[in-house]
């Protein structure tokens, strides 16, 4: 039994999410990853990744990520317009008796190719972004970068999560995009546990509720970290109590922590007090993950 427990400690993937930007996902993610003996940090906020600004990873390797989009064989196309009618993203227009594609609008579903009766459409690769892998002390840092103007970051997130192969006693922290859309769903799909970071405002509660609904929909075990806590009433805390949501930790509204963070410094690497705070938080989270995954695998 002990062996089983250790094995489950070994590979643990924790997704950190919030309904809005600026709630503290990256603060929590980089500090939890840095508080662990060894860990992997994956920045899935591919539209504006910022974890690398904190980690400043070295020995960075880079790979391009492509999607498949249709190309038209003018000789074969007879102008039936089935592809144009099929595309619910309106990525195709029929002009001068030929379908033309708007690359950035295409979601690479491949449907137009399937519906073409003349086999006039074939697939070609188009680069939409890249993934980077580097090292920052004991943390392996993955960063996904979506090129500006692209329709969806999902292919980049898929690649990021498939590249991560946890070895040995490894903790993986997934820093999610804000909100609760497709890119967030993709980011939490493989996670063993979800950490929801919330702000002590009414707006914060609204956004917390969005991700709360999402993790319930995905049947993910989850807990909340209250960030920017003040002495006053905390609406996010009230929300958690009313909905019987486990609060795993409280991060104070603290100018020293805020300054370190805005200077892109990792608090646990700079200050012993914060190292203790995030190590304790990590231990709480780990225990909770084990507890939840054992009683509800």
């Amino acid at each position, binding site marked *: 039994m002990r062996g089983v427990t250790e094995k489950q400690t070994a590979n643990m993937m924790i997704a950190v999410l919030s309904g809005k930007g600026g709630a503290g996902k990256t603060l929590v993610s980089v500090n939890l990853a840095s508080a662990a003996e060894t860990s992997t940090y994956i920045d899935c906020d591919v*539209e504006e990744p910022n974890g690398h600004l904190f980690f400043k990873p070295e020995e960075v390797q880079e790979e391009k990520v492509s999607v498949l989009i249709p190309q038209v064989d003018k000789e074969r196309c007879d102008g039936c317009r089935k592809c*144009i009618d099929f*595309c*619910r*993203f*309106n*990525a*195709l*227009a*029929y*002009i*001068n008796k030929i379908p*033309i594609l*708007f690359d*950035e*609008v295409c*979601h690479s579903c491949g449907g137009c190719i399937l519906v073409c009766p003349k086999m006039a459409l074939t697939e070609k690769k188009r680069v939409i972004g890249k993934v980077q892998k580097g090292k920052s002390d004991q943390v392996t840092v993955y960063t996904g970068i979506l090129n500006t*103007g692209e*329709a*969806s*970051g999902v292919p980049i997130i898929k690649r990021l999560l498939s590249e991560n192969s946890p070895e040995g006693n490894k903790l993986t922290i997934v820093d999610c995009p804000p*909100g609760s*859309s*497709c*890119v967030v769903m993709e980011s939490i799909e493989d996670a063993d546990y979800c950490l929801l970071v919330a702000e002590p405002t009414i707006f914060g509660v609204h956004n917390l509720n969005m991700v709360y609904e999402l993790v319930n929909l995905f049947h993910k075990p989850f807990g909340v970290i209250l960030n920017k806590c003040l002495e006053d009433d905390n609406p996010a805390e009230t929300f958690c109590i009313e909905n019987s949501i486990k609060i795993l930790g409280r991060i104070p509204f603290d100018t020293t922590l805020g300054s370190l963070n805005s200077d892109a410094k990792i608090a646990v690497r700079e200050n012993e007090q914060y190292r203790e705070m995030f190590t304790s938080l990590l231990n709480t989270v780990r225990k909770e993950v084990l507890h939840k995954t054992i009683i509800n695998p």
Partner: protein
Amino acid sequence: MKIAIPVDGKDLESSVGVAFGRSPYFLIYDTETKEENLVVNSASESTGGAGIKAAQIIVDHKANALLTPRLGGNAAEVLKTAKVDIHKTIAGSVKDNIDAFMAGKLPLLDEIHEGRHGKTDR
């Protein structure tokens, strides 16, 4: 020639639609026969790419010119490829704009905004 105008209402006294791709209707006006043809903009409910689909409707109705207050990049590309002239509307009703166009008083629209470019995920 045929001119197309995004419209908020169903007749010549209506105001010009402010968002091309999301306008509820297009008025196609034949300057020779003076015939009006009101077309429902089926692109207006699209989650993305409304400008492309709306421009396709204009092209399919064989309009030679579009009168609009503004236009996104993708819609402009469709219309330019199909050689549809794009003119900038003035304040006033659809009829005022048709009259101004006939009098040669509507300049070509030279400012094309970037549009949303399929940013539907956020």
